[in-house]
């Protein structure tokens, strides 16, 4: 009896993560071991550029656009400003856009974190879409 239970439990422990990890099924009963793979997803990396009416440009980091010195010390999936589409850049920059003069333009060039590595992202007018969604 103990031998049978041992084999079953050992097989479950060793093999079951294959189902959620390789076949994307079985959750939440089966546990994937993908620690921290979601951390940093939706966080933009690159350069925001403010183009003023007279043509002068100012480069800003994502944190400068956020008006923060660092990202919040909360669980990453609780952060409402994560970016998954270029339209979501407007949510990320909503506070900045609210203060941006109407004759200025905010654009972004860079990438955004995703589960399988960063994906390129750019937007010519970040404040145009999604600014009021956040």
């Amino acid at each position, binding site marked *: 009896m*103990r*031998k049978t*239970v*041992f*084999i079953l*439990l*050992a097989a479950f*422990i*060793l093999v079951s*993560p*294959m189902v959620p*990890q*390789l076949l994307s099924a079985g*959750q*939440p009963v089966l*546990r*994937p*071991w*993908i*620690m*921290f*793979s979601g*951390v*940093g*997803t939706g*966080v933009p*990396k690159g350069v925001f550029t403010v183009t003023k009416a007279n043509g002068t440009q100012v480069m800003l980091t994502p*944190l400068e656009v956020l008006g*923060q*010195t*660092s*990202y919040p*010390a909360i*669980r*990453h*999936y*609780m952060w409402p400003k994560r970016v998954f589409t270029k339209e979501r850049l407007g949510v990320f920059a909503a506070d900045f856009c609210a203060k941006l003069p109407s004759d200025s333009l905010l654009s972004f060039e860079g990438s955004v*974190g995703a589960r*399988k*590595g*960063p994906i390129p992202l750019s937007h010519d007018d970040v404040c145009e879409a999604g600014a009021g969604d956040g």
Partner: protein
Amino acid sequence: MTFARQALAMDRLRIFVAWGAEHHGPTHSAALIRVGLALIIWVRFADEVAFFNAVDPLFLPFGVWMFVWPLFALIGLFPRVSIAMCGIGIFFGYFMFGANFRLPGWYHHHVYLLGAACLLLALTPCGRSWSFERWRTLKEADRDGKPTPDQTGPLWGLRLIGLQLSAIYFWTAVDKTEWAWVNGERLEQIFVWHYSGRALEPVLLEPVVMATLATLVLVVEYALAVLIQLRRWQPVVLPIGLSLHVAFYLFLPVDTYSITMILLYLALIPPEAVTRFLGRMQGGVVETHLR
């Protein structure tokens, strides 16, 4: 599959089952894990399940559960039942609050690991040493003039805990086996979130540093998945694994993951070696109760 291969496979399976299901030895390491898990459970959940956080009355019995059973596990009162109840409580929270209600922090790998460790430890006589049960057994033996009961038993639960550690290392390495991890891009995402604007940002966000760290972690995790099970390699790989978890603790908000993994390394060390060490430390007291 040829007959010879079938016979070889069956032979390997028999060796594996004998290694695991028939594992027998001193119970001191199992008892230490029991005590450690009880304390980690309190540290991890005390704030969340305490009465002052109970918005819904249904949380109150859960709070009592998560305080009382770890207390029993800690002192070794109904030790196997209490550590099993700890595991059941943790998995209740994992599925109900984590998977179902999506409350932050509950559906996490470190919560699952704690619950799994408790349930697997319940398969061992983890209360045969350092417990109220042990004190009561000794008292009865003294009263009846019987010899002191030994502190050994079936430890297949420790083997399963060891396999759980290997599975964690292997599958987390599988998840990292891709170019975006090896070249440091995925690690960069993690560090951008945690280190942007912080003191170590200039060092950790260097591409060379990230690629080196990422590759190192991947190689170490694959190696640990196998080598932690091999006694010959343990003197080398266990310190490496412990260092890895200390590094995780220092560099990332891992909650109780690192400390739980470090505690569960006790399941990998031959229990006789743990008992001998403790005996030497305590002047031979522990060793005398070995069969």
